[in-house]
């Protein structure tokens, strides 16, 4: 049996001299009809470029296939060498042979057309369906990707749909041509974990229904464990290991695969929580938050009733010195707003935030998610690090210089870094820089807002280690905001789970992760991909997050809590 796709010694280069600037350096693989191949690697490993070469989309990004062959079996049985094909043939292949879904569903959809129009267009171009038949086909395919109430959704514009919905629309469009091969380039990276689980389950079901092949590109080995038949690990343009999924996961041959499986935090349901620095009952907290409420007013026109987005609704917790409290939740759950409220960055907040007198004038400092956006590109490191000190009345003298050198060395940056500018550092180094800057004022509390989420997996692990070391050394308390349960498991002493602006469960990390009580926590933990759970089957779960927009004057009912352990409280769920 001939394989659906056979790639031999593929070389792809970029720039003026593609042979000298090779990004993919001789990759070979085969894909049988109906099978799924996962390409795993970190950013810069050439995994996306490899995938984009298969339908020659790489040409439009400035890339060029310099050597090798890609043989694709078309629906009529003929075999086409994609590297030699002309643009007209390629358009047919892209239309009806190979479908593709991208990482960012918002930018892949045209914002000025309804999703219905866009799906109908896909049907018209690929199958020649027009008018009523096209509309019916669009409706059917939306049903197939399990979009509830498909008929009215056809008239929606992309911005009216959530990220998960948009990604489902993208999948629907890719399905419009009934492709023999679907390439999914990090299709769930921009999505929340529970939505990610929904999309993964959907892809698995669609694959079973249509028997199409899939190439799944991801940086997360745990994610593909349940869906892939074969796995190919890429590092710096070379496939370092490829084999059947069980062989790779249970018996990795290459060092890099082993490193990926080991260094990358994998979620283990509370087995890997920290054992140091436990909470001491009765110790005075360094920060306590009592009944924090943040509401952003929405105006709906002059005469309509006023309303407000209840971003954070009655959140209370406290934080002891030297302790990490992780706030987990999905986008829109209010976790970042809570973090910003503690630093006074929101304009509409009420409730009490009490900070015990700390070591410095500003005992709470913050590290932001995006290390590229949180450093002014026009200032050098010396000016960046000096800013907090100058803002608090210190002089730029030898002592300050010494502290900068000390912190730079402590976070693992070279001493000559002071003269350099942010763009001369990698993402991980920039985040270290942000950590050093946050420590300049010798704070007691550092708020880490998704501080490792934007980093590559192995860099992530090293920054987490650094954070734990710094915590011990300076007796720091961390408020660690994250959506990533695996990361949280490594660093948190206590965990607060937020859902729709409220804390639904809070307590000691092991208790919350190993024995979740609230239905949302259970769902969140069930959705985390893990190597150990690869054989479990996930059903498509369509639960949506409720709207947070409320009428003016609405107050949520008082929360009732029940005790689930010594340090483990759960909000009592009320049927709504």
């Amino acid at each position: 049996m001939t394989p659906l796709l056979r790639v031999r010694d593929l070389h792809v280069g970029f720039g003026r001299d593609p042979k000298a600037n090779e990004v993919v350096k001789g990759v070979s693989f085969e894909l049988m009809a109906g099978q799924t191949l996962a390409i795993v690697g970190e950013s810069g490993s050439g995994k996306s470029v490899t995938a984009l070469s298969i339908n020659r989309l790489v040409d439009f990004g400035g890339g060029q296939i310099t050597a090798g062959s890609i043989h694709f079996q078309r629906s009529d049985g003929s075999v086409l060498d994609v590297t030699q094909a002309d643009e007209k043939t390629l358009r047919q292949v892209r239309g009806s042979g190979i479908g593709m879904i991208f990482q960012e569903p918002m930018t892949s959809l045209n914002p000025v057309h309804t999703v219905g129009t866009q799906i109908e267009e896909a049907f018209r171009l690929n199958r020649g369906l027009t008018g009523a038949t096209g509309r019916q086909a669009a409706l059917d395919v939306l049903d197939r990707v399990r979009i509830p109430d498909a008929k009215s959704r056809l008239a929606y514009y992309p911005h009216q749909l959530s990220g998960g919905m948009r990604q489902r629309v993208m999948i629907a469009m890719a399905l419009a041509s009934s492709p023999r091969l679907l390439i999914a380039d990090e299709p769930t990276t921009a999505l929340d974990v529970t939505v990610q689980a929904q999309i993964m389950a959907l892809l698995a079901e669609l694959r079973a229904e249509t028997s199409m092949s899939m190439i799944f590109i991801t940086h997360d080995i745990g994610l593909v464990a349940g869906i892939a038949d074969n796995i190919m690990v890429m590092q710096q343009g070379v496939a370092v290991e490829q084999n059947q999924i069980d062989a790779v996961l249970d018996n990795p041959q290459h060092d890099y695969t082993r490193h990926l499986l080991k260094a990358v935090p994998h979620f283990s349901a509370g087995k890997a929580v920290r054992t140091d620095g436990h909470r001491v009952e009765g110790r005075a907290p360094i920060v306590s938050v009592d009944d924090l409420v943040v509401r952003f007013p929405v105006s709906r026109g002059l005469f309509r009733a006023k309303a407000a987005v209840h971003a954070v609704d009655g959140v209370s917790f406290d934080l002891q010195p030297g302790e990490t409290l992780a706030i987990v939740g999905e986008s829109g759950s209010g976790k970042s707003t809570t973090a910003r409220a503690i630093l006074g960055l929101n304009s509409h907040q009420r409730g009490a935030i009490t900070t015990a007198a700390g070591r410095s004038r500003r005992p709470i400092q913050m590290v932001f998610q995006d290390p590229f956006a949180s450093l002014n590109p026009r200032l050098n490191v010396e000016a960046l690090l000096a800013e907090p000190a100058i803002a608090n009345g210190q002089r730029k003298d030898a002592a300050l210089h010494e502290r900068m050198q000390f912190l730079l060395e402590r976070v693992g940056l070279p001493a000559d870094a002071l003269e350099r500018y942010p763009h001369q550092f990698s993402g991980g180094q920039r985040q270290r820089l942000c950590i050093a800057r946050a420590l300049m004022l010798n704070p007691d509390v550092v708020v880490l807002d998704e501080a490792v989420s934007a980093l590559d997996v192995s860099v992530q692990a090293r920054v987490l280690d650094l954070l734990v070391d710094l915590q011990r050394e300076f007796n720091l308390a961390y408020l660690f905001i994250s959506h990533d349960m695996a990361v949280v498991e490594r660093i948190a002493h206590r965990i607060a789970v937020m859902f729709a602006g409220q804390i639904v469960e809070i307590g000691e990390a092991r208790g919350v992760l190993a024995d979740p009580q609230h239905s949302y926590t259970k769902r969140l933990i069930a959705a985390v991909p893990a190597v150990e759970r690869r054989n479990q089957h996930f059903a498509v779960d369509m639960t949506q997050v409720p709207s947070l927009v409320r009428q003016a004057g609405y107050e949520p009912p008082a929360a009732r809590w029940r005790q689930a352990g010594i340090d483990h409280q759960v909000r009592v769920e009320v049927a709504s």
Partner: protein
Amino acid sequence: MTRVFGALWQHPSGRIGLFIIGLYLTLALLGVLGLTPHPALKQFMIDRLTGPSASYWMGTDLLGRDTMSRLMLGIGQSMLIAFASVAWATLAGTIIGLFAAWLGGLWDGVLMRLMDVLLAFPAILLALLIIAIVGPGTFTSVTAIAIVYTPIFARVVRGPALSLKQRDFVDAARTFGSSQRYILSRHLLLNLVAPLAVQVTLALAWALLTEAGLSFLGLGTQPPTPSLGLMLAESKNLMQQAPWLMIFPALTIMLGILGFNLTGDALRDILDPRTQRRTA
């Protein structure tokens, strides 16, 4: 700074632009220092309306004054007005745009609507209006042109300032307790240098043209001080007999505007991060 100049010199249209601007500045400087072929205001009555020749390279006018000497002085006068007015417009526009973006709300609304009103008038008409009220002269020209181009700078600053204000590094600065002055100068203004530099170069070209237009209408530079627009105006009745009187000032204006525009375009290519990534 030297990096930008180096890049500008490497850029094909930047090199031409820089060369023209350099040439004009040299000519203007020589004119100001009195190092002209002939005294610019002296009337050689015997040589009235002679065409370009070995002794008068660009000919003479009705009063027997040397066109080339007058042009050199005119370039100086026009450049002075252009630079001064653009400097004022940059200063005023940057302050207005920065504060509108930073304060937001009512301030933003009032300031920017005011700018919109100014922008709604055609440039030369607004300048005419201002001069009609105050009376003609060099200083009035500078003020009028500055007011005309202030809204453009206010807009150029406000847009990026609004997006910079939302950036994480501004939030980070707030968490350290940095002063507003520090945030405005180090975090906002420093990042606005690139778009401003481009706008300044382009505005110089427009200012040059507006000044010529005002002088042509008799509302800018007053005789006997030569200026490019004024020389053009004086030549229009002699177009048939002495075409050189019109050709040389017109070419000078055109070439000057070309120089500034080429430099501005090159600057944009160099400073705009989107195009930078492609060339890097």
